[in-house]
């Protein structure tokens, strides 16, 4: 099965061939490297930009204004903070012009911890991204969703922030991308750039499809009846593991929901699940103060207070200035499997 970086690459190939994507660009996005995570190798519209995030986002906006369809990359979300006002501007341009100028543009950026990236390669961006109205925000947790969400993002008429959980970019999926060959090595030979001289290399793309994951649709990845766990990105597979262990060892039956889209998000799915279980744990790794999970808790209490059996809970990153490099520091800063298990246990033990 393809890994997430390969899935994104294949979706972008499909998008530049079939969905009108004109520019895939950013720092080291074009040849020879094809992105620091290889997600843009071999793409015909990929090009290298100056090392200038403001130029990357500004140019994407200008391209979108002039009828092009750009996919811009910020190499790590830790470096997106100097374009925050341009993101605000991209989010308000359609509204401020009273419906004249919409911006069909995608910004992709790797987020989160998991590669021992220290203070400037570990940050999350979901809390900040969801503070910027006018953007759609998505974050896959597996290669198939990564493919399908990128297809939807490249069809959008509005700015889409595509957050890539960097810890999962090299992880292979459990479900194939429609069209990918069954053999991992065969896929790698077709679409991974060779080591050494790449000047004459061209990828051989499999016959891909328009498989899309609609923006705004969550997915129940594990049905359950006792407790709802809502997550996205890196922590989602950990939540699935924790739920399995909780079922086996403690007979706690968790329903795990992959939110996939943060804005707009699938409240109907969350609501139905929480009404069924009465208990909800939100898990993500961004810093916990003014965290997106806090919004979800607010809505949960506003709308479902009398159906709850326990206080809605947020497990998120510690509110500290950075994620330290040492193993112990990173592990202590953002949710790990044991933290999720502990939160599930605690929530299951609550009684009204």
């Amino acid at each position: 099965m393809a890994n997430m970086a390969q899935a994104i690459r294949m979706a972008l190939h499909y998008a530049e061939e079939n969905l009108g994507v004109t520019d895939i660009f950013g720092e080291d996005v074009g040849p020879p490297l094809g992105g620091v995570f290889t997600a843009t190798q071999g793409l015909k519209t990929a090009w290298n930009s100056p090392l200038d995030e403001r130029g990357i986002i500004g140019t994407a906006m200008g391209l979108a204004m002039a009828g092009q369809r750009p996919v811009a990359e910020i190499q790590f979300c830790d470096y997106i903070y100097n374009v925050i006002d341009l993101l605000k501007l991209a989010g308000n341009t359609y509204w401020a012009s009273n419906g004249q100028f919409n911006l069909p543009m995608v910004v992709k950026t790797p987020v989160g911890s998991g590669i021992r990236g220290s203070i400037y390669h570990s940050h999350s961006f979901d809390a900040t991204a969801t503070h910027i109205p006018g953007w759609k925000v998505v974050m896959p947790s597996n290669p198939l969703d990564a493919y399908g969400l990128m297809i939807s993002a490249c069809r959008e008429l509005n700015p889409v922030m595509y957050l890539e959980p960097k810890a999962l970019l090299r992880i292979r999926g459990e479900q194939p991308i429609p069209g990918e060959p069954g053999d991992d090595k065969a896929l790698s030979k077709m679409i991974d750039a060779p080591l050494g001289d790449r000047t004459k290399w061209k990828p051989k793309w499999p016959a891909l499809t328009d498989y899309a994951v609609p923006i705004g649709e969550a997915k129940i990845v594990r049905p359950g009846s006792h407790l709802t766990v809502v997550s996205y990105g890196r922590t989602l597979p950990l939540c699935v593991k924790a739920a399995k262990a909780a079922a086996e060892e403690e007979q706690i039956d968790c329903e795990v929901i992959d939110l996939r889209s943060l804005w707009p998000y699938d409240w109907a799915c969350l609501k139905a699940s929480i009404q069924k279980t009465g208990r909800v744990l939100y898990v993500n790794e961004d810093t916990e103060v003014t965290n997106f999970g806090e919004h979800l808790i607010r809505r949960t209490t506003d709308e479902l207070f009398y159906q709850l059996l326990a206080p809605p809970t947020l497990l998120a990153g510690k509110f500290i200035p950075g994620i330290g490099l040492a193993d112990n520091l990173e592990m202590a800063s953002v949710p790990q499997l044991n933290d999720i298990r502990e939160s599930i246990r605690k929530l299951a033990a609550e009684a009204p």
Partner: protein
Amino acid sequence: MSKDAKSVTRPKLVKTEPDAELPLERALLVKIHDLMVKARVLEERLIQMYKQGHGYFWIGGPGEEAFNVPLGLLMKPGEGPAFDYLHAHYRQSATLLAMGEPPIGALRQMKNVATDPYSGGRNFAGHFAIKKWNVVPVSSPIEVQYAMAPGTALAQKRHGGDGITVVTGGDAGTAEGDFATCLIWSTRPGNELPVLVVVTHNQWGISTAAATQQANPDIAERGKAFGMRTRTIDGNDPINAYLELKEAFDYVRKERKPFLLEAKVSRLYGHSSASGANFVTAEVDCVKSYEERLERAGVLTRAEMDGVRRHWTDTIAQAARTVRDEPQPAPETIWDHIFKEKG
């Protein structure tokens, strides 16, 4: 004059009667005058509306008409990459009028009524947005347009034809990194972009004198480090501005390369209503000096020019009366146009 500029063919200077000194045709001289007066009257009406409580905030471009009118006359308005894109800042009303925009839209935006054609009552005066003419939304940050301009210019380079991108900003805003972004992205080797980068230099950033913040008084000099053609001009003289702009436009259209043009201009009513919006007498008034010149050259009489001012004063006062009774946007419209749903 730079060495480069000297080597380029200058536009043919048409000598006209009765005044051989003014190197533009009479009809154009008269048209420029008409638009300059119209723009000045519009801005003064906007200021009056602010002072009478018919708007919350005024910002605009009185003092820049001599530059902004020729700029608008030289634009190629239309929608899409075959036409010019304008990434303007908030002192550009004269350019819009010269492109053919009726003045009532600016009054509607000042009064933030529902009929405001640029923002539906959402944004300040002078924040134009006209899709059918590639006038991309003006926003209050003073620098962001410089970061976006390379994007439309790249699309135009790809499209071919002679459409160009024009981006304008003030001298104070060039301290922001986005100005450097514009120069870098417009001059990537092999990917030079058809963008006319304009700086209107009025010597002020709100209350801060340019001379106290930027060591080089000529901002255009910075373009030379990027191999760009550059020029610093007197933007208070509309004839000079027209000729210089014509040369710059022609170069960018034909060569598909960037040009950095800096125009020294006046700021006649201060930064905005936040600094009082009162007329300053210490700076050149380009309308006054142009009128003296036209009168001396026998192009227009004082009486004719007074007639022009009266005409626009009456016309725009009438438009202001129309706008006065128009409704505010309805509260529920805050939810409109957050996302575009259909193509």
